[in-house]
């Protein structure tokens, strides 16, 4: 049974989703199952992570079909780290949803769909088959469509139309790229593809396929100039949904980009150049976009775009140090972005508004909560020793080493603008005198809801802040992890061997 160990996070998530579907109408039961299940999932993920950390990359050939003919599931350190982060963010958002999302929305199958979303994410990280990756992506986007429209308010539906159209287009481009790749090589297994693509003589066609993948994943991970769906939709659903979207959905696109461009399309200087240019523009445009927004959630949406640039820039420089920086940033970003959207939800619960102009006086009225919110906000900026600081060292070192001074300028510019944005947000929301906000008669304000709900809203924020603090103060551990991942990614022969040379037990 231990051979199938890496599938357990996946299967557990599926089991949870199915179980929740049986209790379609019973919201309270769903709440309990979801929270307990997420807790168990976190324990399982930690267990599997420890196993992979000690024993190295593990593979499972589904249905006992030998690679490259069947579907392979593979957990290297990168994949299992992402699974672990998914279950940390999943647990936090599960508790947060239970406290903050109103019952009318939960009644439409919020929790089952939420766990299907986590299932899709876990599957996308663990799969070793490119078409299977497409299927997991579809599970992710279909669940996200449902989550983004639950409630059916005007802004939500309009945001959903935009979100749907561009994500659908991305899927179709991804599918087209898979078709072309299959036509070129006759294989779908990623490890097998790595060998076969290197042997293809028609390099122009390989490059075009790579660009198709870049566009498909680029739309999903919101890089310049393909990000316009993100700020148009991420602020419309309930903040619990925004939290899981902002934390994980764009990151799965980044994961796919890193996977494909370190395994299948490797060592193409032209592609790396394109990635670098895209990343620099992403950093600039995201930062400038965040500067002019007034709605807190829109500010965070633009910051998501901006910070995607850090990860892509690491991939574009393509040295071991740079990729380690990108991975570290990925770890930090998932935790902090999830937390920030939950914080915006908490602010909305307290004041009934997310407009920076209207808000104010938070520090005077809620000093403890304000200090709590200080942690993720300034981790995002990267004030040392908080978590956002460490990956930037790697990235800046790498850009000196590769001599790409434009990247250096972009990294520093984006950090600086992030600082300005967060400082502005802090001054407006926390330090400015409290403003008169018209009271909404039916709105469930923070001071009106039950104590248990308040705990459910605050605890996940505390939990993620603690994890963020650990990433900041225990940066040495995370740096070791990131270095190990990046050396695994740069020497992909190990991955290929792990998939193609496994024996199947009879």
């Amino acid at each position: 049974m231990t051979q199938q160990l890496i599938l357990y996070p996946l299967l557990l998530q599926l089991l949870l989703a199915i179980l929740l579907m049986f209790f379609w109408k019973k919201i309270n039961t769903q709440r309990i199952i979801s929270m307990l299940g997420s807790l168990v999932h976190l324990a399982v993920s930690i267990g599997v992570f420890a196993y992979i950390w000690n024993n190295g990359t593990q593979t499972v050939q589904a249905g006992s079909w030998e690679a490259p003919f069947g579907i392979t599931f593979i957990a290297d350190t990168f994949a299992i780290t992402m699974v672990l982060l998914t279950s940390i963010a999943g647990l936090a958002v599960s508790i947060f949803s239970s406290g903050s999302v109103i019952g009318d929305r939960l009644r439409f199958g919020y929790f089952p769909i939420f766990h299907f979303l986590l299932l899709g994410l876990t599957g996308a990280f663990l799969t070793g088959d490119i078409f299977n990756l497409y299927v997991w992506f579809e599970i992710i986007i279909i669940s996200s469509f449902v989550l983004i429209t639950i409630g059916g308010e005007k802004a939500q539906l309009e945001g959903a139309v935009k979100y749907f159209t561009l994500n659908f287009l991305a899927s179709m481009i991804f599918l087209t790229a898979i078709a072309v790749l299959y036509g070129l090589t006759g294989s779908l297994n990623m490890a097998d593809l790595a060998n076969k693509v290197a042997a293809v003589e028609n390099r122009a066609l390989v490059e075009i396929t790579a660009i198709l993948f870049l566009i498909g994943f680029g739309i999903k991970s919101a890089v310049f100039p393909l990000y316009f769906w993100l700020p148009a939709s991420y602020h419309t659903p309930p903040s619990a949904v925004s939290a899981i979207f902002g934390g994980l959905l764009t990151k799965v696109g980044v994961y796919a980009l890193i996977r494909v461009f370190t395994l299948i399309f490797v060592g193409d200087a032209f592609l790396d150049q394109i990635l670098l240019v895209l990343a620099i523009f992403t950093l600039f445009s995201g930062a400038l976009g965040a500067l002019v927004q007034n709605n807190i959630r829109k500010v965070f949406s633009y910051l998501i775009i901006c910070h995607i640039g850090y990860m892509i820039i690491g991939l574009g420089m393509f040295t071991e140090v740079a990729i380690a920086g990108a991975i570290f940033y990925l770890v930090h970003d998932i935790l902090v972005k999830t937390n920030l959207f939950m914080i915006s939800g908490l602010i909305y619960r307290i004041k009934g508004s997310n407009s920076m102009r209207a808000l104010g006086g938070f520090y005077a009225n809620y000093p403890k909560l304000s200090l709590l919110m200080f942690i993720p906000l300034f981790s995002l900026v990267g004030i040392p020793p908080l978590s956002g600081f460490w990956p930037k060292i790697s990235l800046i070192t790498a850009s000196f080493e590769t001599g790409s001074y434009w990247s250096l300028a972009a990294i520093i510019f984006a950090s600086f603008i992030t600082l300005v944005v967060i400082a502005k947000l802090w001054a407006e929301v926390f330090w400015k005198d409290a403003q008169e906000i018209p009271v909404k008669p039916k709105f469930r304000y923070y001071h009106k809801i039950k104590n248990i709900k308040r705990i459910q809203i605050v605890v996940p924020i505390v939990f993620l802040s603690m994890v963020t603090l650990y990433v900041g103060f225990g940066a040495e551990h995370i740096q070791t992890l990131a270095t190990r991942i990046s050396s695994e990614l740069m020497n992909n022969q190990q991955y290929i061997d792990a998939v193609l040379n496994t024996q199947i037990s009879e």
Partner: protein
Amino acid sequence: MEILLAIIIGILYAAGIYMMLRRSLVKLIIGIILLGNGANLLIFLLGRITEGAPPIIPEESKVFLEAYADPVPQALILTAIVISFGLQSFAIILVKRAHKVVKTDDLDEMNATDEDS
């Protein structure tokens, strides 16, 4: 046959994207459907078209005796069709709801998400 299919795929992609770029919500759905079909046909074409027996090995032998059709593209297409079936039915319901709430068919007038609030 390949040439004909290639032309059809080109037309489907072009028409699909053209329809998606129109302002009308209904045309958006038509575009989605056309684009999905184009992608499925592309997988079919790139999986090499063979005229031959189904890919089943006779009971008494161990290998294929003659040319066979590659089953993988068909499995891919079946999966892709099921997925696009789900996506399209979702799109239809979404567009219906959006039309009911926003009371317009024009995508240009859907700008509540850009408002500063």
